[in-house]
Each structure stands twice: as C-alpha cells, then as structure tokens.
C-alpha cells in the first residue's frame, strides 16, 4: 500500500513538473519577449491587483461569517471586561486602518498600471504629508498606550488581603496540581527537595517542618468560589510551563526556581457559563461535529465519542515536551457554599502523610 502511494505521489510530481515545463515552453513561443513587463502585462496584473483587494475583503468577511463563533465568549473574570474593551477598541482601529491602507495600495496599483509613453509624476517629498502621517499614529498610539498601561497596572497589581483566596498552581511534565492554603490562609514552605519525602505522597514538595503547610490541601482539579479574588502563586518543578486560563483572560509562566503571581476574580460560575446562549450554540456545534466523527469511529469498531459538556480549562501554554498538548486541568467555578462543601471533602497535607 505504502509503495503504491509513494509511487503515485512520485508519478504525480513527475506529471506536474512535465506540465510546468510545457507551460514554460508555451510562454516562450514569443521569441521576441524580453521578459520585461509590457503594456499587456501591466494591464492584466493591475486588474489582478484590484481583484486581490476584493479577495482580502471577502476572505475577511467570510472568516467572520464562518468562524466568528470559535472566538472566546465573554470574559468570566472581573478584569476581563476591561481586557475585552481594550481588545475591541484595538480591533476597531486595526480594521479601520487595514481596510483603508489595503484599499489605497491595491487601488493605486490598479489605477496607475503602466502604459508605454506615459510619464510618472516626479513627486519626491512633502514635509506636510510626512508630518501628518507621523503625528496621527503618534496621537492614536499615545491613547492606546495610556489606556493599555492603565489596564495593565490594574490587572497586575496583586495585593495581599484577608479576603483573597491564595492558591498555588504547581506545574510538572505533564500535569497540573493546585494547593490551597487551608484554615490558616498561609501556604507552607515548599521545595523540590522534599518531593521524595513520604514515599512520593508529598506531591508538591511541602516542607513538613513548617506548621503552615500541614493544613494545606493539594488537588488535581481547581475549584474557585465565584466573586472572590484568587491570588495564584505559580511554581514549576522541571521546565517552563505557562498557566493559561483563556476564559478568565489570565496567563502567567511557571518558572523553576521562582514563584510567579497572577490574581483575578471569577464572576461567572461554570453553571452560568453553560447557560450562556453563545456557549450553548458552541457546545451544540461541537457535539454535532463529535457525532459525525463518532460515526466513523463506530464503523471502525471503536467507541463513540462522549458528548461534550462545557468546563473551564487551564492549559499549558509554554512548550514543555512531548505531552505539552495534553497538559490540562479542569477549573470549576461555583458558589461559596459549593466550594466550602467541596473543600471539606479534601484531605489536608497532615492527613495525606499520616
């Protein structure tokens, strides 16, 4: 089978080369050609330039029509709406500039396509024009920079406070763990040197001599109470990873040897997000695709795919090795009561190492 396929490919490549060389010979029939564009070429190519402008616009519109629904839904975190605002403002600006500049570029290419005997306008400089298109970007960018920096400072200033929930995100090839601070609200000291203590039960290397660590809770699924600020402390035990939570507009690298931070307040529970009309439509579409794929699987005697139910996810977003593509953790955003109840079912570090 392989041999046949390979041979077919080789034959096809051979045919295409033969065809191309025929094309080449045909194009050589005009023995007087100098291979420099003549009026006919200029005319055709100029028009194609204009057609290309249409192509760019149509591709843009079609992409939004066909794939607009794959974009992320409304942000599920408090700072997320600021983020989304800034994003839409930037996008509006980009589309405006893109539409105009591409139009000018390709329209001029079409309009001023060359003709023998015509002379171009000798127009080498205009200080006023230069000033205009220097100053306009300066002003626009100044606005964007100021707005961006204001938002950035708001998002990134992590202040320790009583109400906030402190959670450690712990990365390793190729999975995530989360550590909660427990009753005392303080994460115990930790280091990779302690990982082998207690027959490997010390999953994130908590220092057993630090009393703050005894009530810490280590889990494989991230639960967050809605409406409460969460301060994440990121650690990694081996290589760089990145904790990426796209629905919350949150991301921070996990760096071996140091602790990095990111904080946000989730505002939409998993349940609420599942009821979001956009999300319902998206999940429906995904399940339709999964059903289609299942048919093929079942025909091959394999199991059908399970229907998809929406959950928030934490993804690894820094290349970390073979299973980088599958380094994930489920995130559940729930009410304070549900969260408390879930927490009571978890074992503390003291219980685990007993």
């Amino acid at each position, binding site marked *: 089978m392989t041999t046949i396929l390979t041979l077919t490919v080789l034959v096809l490549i051979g045919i295409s080369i033969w065809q191309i060389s025929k094309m080449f010979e045909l194009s050589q029939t005009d023995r007087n050609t100098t291979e420099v*564009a003549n009026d006919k070429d200029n005319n055709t190519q100029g028009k194609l330039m204009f057609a290309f402008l249409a192509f760019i616009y149509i591709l843009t519109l079609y992409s939004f029509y066909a794939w607009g629904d794959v974009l992320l839904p409304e942000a599920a975190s408090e700072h997320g709406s600021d983020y989304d605002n800034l994003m839409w403002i930037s996008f509006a600006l980009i589309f405006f500039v893109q539409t105009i500049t591409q139009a000018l*570029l390709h329209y001029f290419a079409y309009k001023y396509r060359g003709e023998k005997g015509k002379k171009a306008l000798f127009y080498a400089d205009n200080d006023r024009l230069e000033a205009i298109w220097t100053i306009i970007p300066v002003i626009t960018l100044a606005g964007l920079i100021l707005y961006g920096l204001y938002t950035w400072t708001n998002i990134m200033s992590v202040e320790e406070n009583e109400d906030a929930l402190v959670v450690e995100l712990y990365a390793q090839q190729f999975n995530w763990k989360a550590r909660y601070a427990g009753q005392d609200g303080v994460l115990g000291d930790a280091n990779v040197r302690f990982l082998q203590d207690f027959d490997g039960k010390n999953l994130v290397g908590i220092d057993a001599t630090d009393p703050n660590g005894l009530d810490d809770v280590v889990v494989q699924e991230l639960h967050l109470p809605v409406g409460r600020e969460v301060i994440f402390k990121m650690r990694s035990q081996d290589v760089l990873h990145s904790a990426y939570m796209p629905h919350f507009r949150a991301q921070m690298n996990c760096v071996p040897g140091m602790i990095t931070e990111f904080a946000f307040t989730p505002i939409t529970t998993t349940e609420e997000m599942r009821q979001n009309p956009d999300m319902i439509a998206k999940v429906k579409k995904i399940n339709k695709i999964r059903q289609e794929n299942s048919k093929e699987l079942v025909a091959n005697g394999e199991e059908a795919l399970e229907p998809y139910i929406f959950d928030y996810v934490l993804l690894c977003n820094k290349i970390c090795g*073979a299973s980088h593509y599958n380094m994930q953790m489920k995130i559940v955003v729930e009410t304070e009561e549900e969260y408390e109840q879930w927490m009571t079912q978890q074992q503390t570090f003291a219980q685990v190492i007993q």
Partner: protein
Amino acid sequence: MSAVAHAHVEDHEHEHHHKETFMTKYIFSQDHKMIAKQYLITGLFMGIIGIAMSLLFRIQLAWPEQSFAIFEVLLGKWAPEGVMDPNVYLALVTIHGTIMVFFVLTAGLSGTFSNLLIPLQIGARDMASGLLNMISFWLFFLSSAIMVASLFVEAGPAAAGWTIYPPLSALPQAQPGSGMGMTLWLVSMAIFIASSLLGSLNYIVTVLNLRTKGMTMSRLPLTIWAFFVTAIIGVVSFPVLLSAALLLIMDRSFGTSFFLSDIFIQGEVLHYQGGSPVLYEHLFWFLGHPEVYIVLLPALGITSEIIATNARKPIFGYRAMVASILAIAFLSTIVWGHHMFISGMNPFLGSVFTFTTLLIAIPSAVKAFNYITTLWKGNLQFNPAMLFSIGLVSTFISGGLTGIILGDSTLDINVHDTYFVVAHFHLVMGISALYGLFAGVYHWFPKMFGRMMNKNLGYVHFWVTAVCAYGVFFPMHFIGMAGLPRRYYTNTAFPYFDDIADINVVISLFAFTAGAAQLVFLYNFIYSIFYGKKAEQNPWKSNTLEWTTPVEHMHGNWPGEIPHVHRWAYDYSKPGQEEDWVSQIVPLKEGEEELQH
C-alpha cells in the same frame, strides 16, 4: 584603513588576467558576486527543507494522529505505522523556525543581497575584505551542514522550539531532542553567529569606506541604507545570543547553573541552584527581537528600490525612509521585553516595554504610507519583482497591525503564545521577508546570472503564493483568538477546540498549494540559470550603479575606472529629461538642480 587602501590600489586589470582555477572561481571564491550566489543557493536549499517541514506538520495539524504513508517514508521510525510522534512534531516546528529565521531569511536574504549589492551599488571593486567574506560564507555553510546533520542523530534534532528556552533545552531528561540534537543545534548556531558577525563587519566597513567619488551617504540607495543598518543591528545583538548559547552549553555540559535552579525531573533532584530561565529569555530576546528587523529591513530596502524603479517614480520621502530605518533600528534594541510580559518579569518592566514597542508602529507606519504614496500617479511596470514588492507592503501592513495587540502587555496576556502570534509574525516577518527575497531574486537575477527569469511563471508564482499566504494566515488569527496555544501536537485533547478542526484543514490545503507554487519558482530559477533569455545590461532601466557594469561578470566589477556618482538614485521621470530614468553616473545638466533631499 589597510582594507581601503587595498581595494583602491588593487589593479583590476591585473586581477582580470589572473588565472583562476575551478576551485578559486566557484568554490573558494573571494568575489562578492560569487559569494552572493553561494549564499542564495545554500539559502534556497535550506528553504526547501524548512518549507517541506512545515508541510509535514500541517498534515498532522489538519488530520491529527492519522496514518500517512509519507510520514513513514520520510520520518521512518519517528512515525511508527505512519503516525507522527509528538516529539517529532516539536522537532519539526523547532527546526522549521530555526532554518527559516536564521538560515533562509537572515543568511539567505541579507547574505545574498548585501554581498551582491553593496559593492555594486556604492561603486566598489569588491568587499573591504574578500577573504573574511569567503570565510563568512564557509562558516555559514558549515553551520548549515551541522544543522542538517542534527536531523539524523539517534534521538532526533532539537525540539524545544526555536527559542530553545531552558530548562527544556538544557536537560536531556526533559525530552529526547535535548540530547545530541540540542548540542549540534548550539554548535551550529555559534558558528552561524560567527559567520554573521564577519559578514556584518565587512558590510559596515565597505559601506563606510569604499563608496565611489560622489556617492555621499545621502545619495545611497535605500537598499544600501537597509543593509548597512541591518549589519549594525547584527553586530550589536548577535554577540548576546552567542553569550546565551555559550552559557547554555556550560549549563548542559559543565554543571553550571546560569539558567537552572530547583529542578526535580525523572524522579531525581538535580544539583542546580540559583540560576534563572528568565535570564536566558532576556539574553535570547535581546537578539531575538532585533532579529526580526535583521530579517525585515533588507526586505524593505529591496522593496524600496524595486517599487521606485518599477513605479518610474522617486521613492517618496527618501529622508523619512532613512530616518525610519534608523528609528526602527534603535527601537528594535529596546523592545525585547515584549516577548516576556508574562514570564514572571516585574510588571513595571512590562509597562516600559509596551511603551517602547508601540513606538515602533510610528516609523513602520511612515514607511507603509511612503510606499503607497510612491505608487500614486506612477507608471507602474508589473514585473514579477514589483508584484512581490507590493505584496510585501500588503502583508507588512496586515501583519504589522496585529502587533499593536501583541505589543500591548494587557492584550498579550490572553493571546500570548497562541496561534494569533503565529499568524502575526508569519505575515509581518515571514511572508514579508520571503516576498522581499523573491522580489530581489526576480529583480537582480539578470545581474547575478546574466539571464532573465520567465515572467509568466513569475506571475503564476506570485498570485498563487499571495492568495495562499492570506489563506493560511488570516484564518489562523481566529484559532488564536479562540485560545488555542501554539506548538500543540494536536488540539484533540480538548473537545472545546473541536470546532476549529475545519479551519485547520482549510489552512493546510492553502499551505500545500503555496508549497506547490514554490516548485514553479524553483523550476523557473534553475531553468533560467541555464536557458533563460540573455539579459540586457539594464533590463529594468534602473538608475543605480550595478546596472552600469557589464553583463558578463568580472573581477573588479567595472572595466576601467569606477564611475563617479553625480546624483541620487531616484531621478525617475524627472522633468526636463528625455527618458524616464537618469543613471546616477550622468552629470547634472547645466542649470539642473539636484533635489534637496
């Protein structure tokens, strides 16, 4: 100074009669024109490998984890039963990036055209040092050979991404590619950097010292300005990458801890203490970001020259173009931190880098507007080179604009390292610079090989490539905005991303078509070297000095005296002149004013 004296005193007549063997003429040549061709052909060869790799992983991305005979044939044991192994996927992505950025778009583009055009366009007999120039090429060739050889080592080539962040790249336990493959990668890059530095120093010295009489800096063609400034950026930033590579070699082989600390891997606590991967990121991006402009500025320089020649109009705003090249060069060295907004670096630094990064949009916008204005009321000659130049302006705008999003630290949080980034940089530096390379090849082919390339095949090449380039990278923004990280072997581990499967298929189909279009170019290129139409001396009726040399190559470039320069390079369609072009060697007429530029 000795270099200057050498080149001026050099008796070209004597050189010409000097008997050349096959070895000194074609292999160990010190002639800049031959070295340019050597760079081009090596670069194209590496380009074929780099592009072929991207097509392989596009198959995997469109039809994940399915069995393909082509994988079995090409990848052998790395694709058991025809299914690509995840480690191999990462290796392909890594080597594709490395080859395209360094070997094709740095050496292949800048190496070719800096070598070819600097002496020819400034009126010099050769580079300041022909010997260093030759060594520069052979170091590049050696590093290419090592990089290609690394594909064949037992555990596979480097696979940590082209940025090779430690600890992934430092620890063989972390992935198979971080063993012998990574060692070869580092050795290859260290040699590459040496080659690049020798080349750059030569370009700088040549431009400063060997300009012919009358060729003031303000009369230099924009190509030369671009190559000159590119060389300066290279000299400033490449040594920093070399230091990063050397420190990484120390960490890997000699037990130091520059970039490593507190690591537990494969059931073992390693001895490393006190180093930081973030330090590596700083060192890497101090070259990594300027590298974007090392790739892009030569392409923009080539475009400036080709657009002016084919629009039969002076380039609009020569001074502003030079100023923006200088501004971009300066800013490029103080923006590297925008690759590290979420690296754990102090957020205040993030603010500073956002500020400097968005400033780059200003000179870039000036350049784009100036290109567009150059077309206005021109008499556009659509030679293939002109099409690629206009294509470059188009992708430079489309790709550059999304930089406003990625350069903004806030917005970067959620699109960092997603396919949005992949789409952005492929358009703005990948495709744009490739278009610059193609434009340069079509335009200066007659100068390099004394023959013309077929224009109709050039048209086919351009239009198929142009449509496919947007077809590949425009939809890719959507995948990124959906939140899909780059460097994922497949997105099937997340049912949430099931709905982007069809976008991936569309992208791949466009990519294969684009790949096929490059075969048309290759065919045209190779066929034309041997059987193309014989070129006239100045086929495009261009003003610059290279077109005053004879079609047949000769050592020393000009028979007899080197011509003197009397005007800038852009006197196209000047009122009061009979033709729509005036070569730089034509003296000003009585009463004719040179444009105050």
